[in-house]
């Protein structure tokens, strides 16, 4: 019997689904590898991506279907993609500024490889800090972002990635305190935010590329 992790489409609260029909979250849980320095293969993959990715590509990105879809979604939710860069453009600019995709540990590298290969952004949570399936909803009055004493204040009406208990991350933002993956994480929950114009297949591909990179030795 196969022990391959399966992805799971998350729930989307009614007002969001009505207003932004293509918006969704897809997650995939897997056993966490040792989250330290990336193995040679992953670092070589990053180097190969750096060589493939040039300045002209960074500029042309916004015309490609998937980055364009994320740019449009950013506009629709009140983010300016020329101020808050869509993740793949942010990675491209980082590549140009630093002369290459820098290795930042296995988890970050796996997420970067998946992002650059597909254009679909991924984030990682500590599965133990997540209560039930992930979904998208609007934050309520008095809610905080993250878990525990370090949870951050959150204005009402923000679009958040949440579980049954609390908002865990703002839409297109990094996980809040107490729920992100750390070196002590035993099980990871990767998630991607899907937007209108991005097929489910691309999202699956992004998740699988990240899983493959995380399993590299």
């Amino acid at each position, binding site marked *: 019997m196969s022990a391959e992790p399966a992805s799971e489409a998350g729930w989307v609260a009614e007002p*969001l689904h*009505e*207003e932004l029909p293509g918006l969704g979250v897809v997650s995939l849980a897997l056993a966490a590898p040792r989250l330290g320095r990336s193995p040679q293969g992953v670092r070589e993959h990053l180097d190969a991506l750096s060589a493939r990715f040039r300045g002209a590509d960074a500029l042309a990105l916004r*015309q490609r279907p998937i980055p364009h879809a994320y740019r*449009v979604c950013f506009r629709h939710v*009140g983010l*300016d993609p020329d101020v808050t860069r869509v993740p793949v453009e942010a990675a491209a600019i980082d590549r140009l500024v630093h002369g290459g995709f820098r290795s930042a540990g296995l988890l970050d590298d796996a997420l970067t490889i998946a992002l650059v290969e597909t254009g679909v952004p991924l984030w990682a949570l500590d599965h133990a800090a997540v209560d039930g399936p992930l979904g998208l909803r609007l934050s309520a009055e008095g809610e905080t972002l993250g878990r525990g004493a370090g949870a951050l204040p959150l*204005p009402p009406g923000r*679009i958040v990635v949440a579980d049954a208990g609390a908002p865990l991350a703002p*839409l297109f933002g990094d996980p809040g305190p107490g729920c992100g993956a750390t070196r002590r994480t035993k099980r990871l929950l990767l998630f991607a935010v899907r937007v209108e114009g991005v097929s489910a297949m691309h999202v699956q591909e992004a998740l699988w590329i990240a899983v493959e990179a995380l399993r590299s030795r």
Partner: protein
Amino acid sequence: MVVIAQRPAGPELLVRELDEAAARRTLRAQVARLERKLARLALEASPRDGIAWEVGRLHGPRLLGLGELERLRDELAERLHDARATLAARAEREARMRELLARMLRDPARHRFVRITQADVGEPGCGAWHVRPRLGLIGMLMGWWQVKLSSGCPLAGRP
């Protein structure tokens, strides 16, 4: 006491909500089209054009109301208009410079010491066409003028 019977607001409210939802969908589609047009223009623009692409944040991520979407649509349309105007002005300026370059190459003596860079005519690189006298002072006195194309970009100096 007079009691005025109130008409049930339900159906009217529902119709208004449906109308507003449809309007928001239309505005989002317009925003998507404007974004595509802006992306195309961004490829043609260069940092020298000094085009401001930002339209300002709306404190997202959140659901935007009808008024906010209208404002966003209008601001994007304004950016698109400004960007097109800037690029058109640059294209006109470059065309004028190309004409001047052609005249300069045909008749250097009538364009003494005129200098046109590759950037002035919309070409990549750091070179420049410069009308200079052949053999320095002798050329100046004899009216021997030539167009020299300087070579590429200067090498990076030591920090």
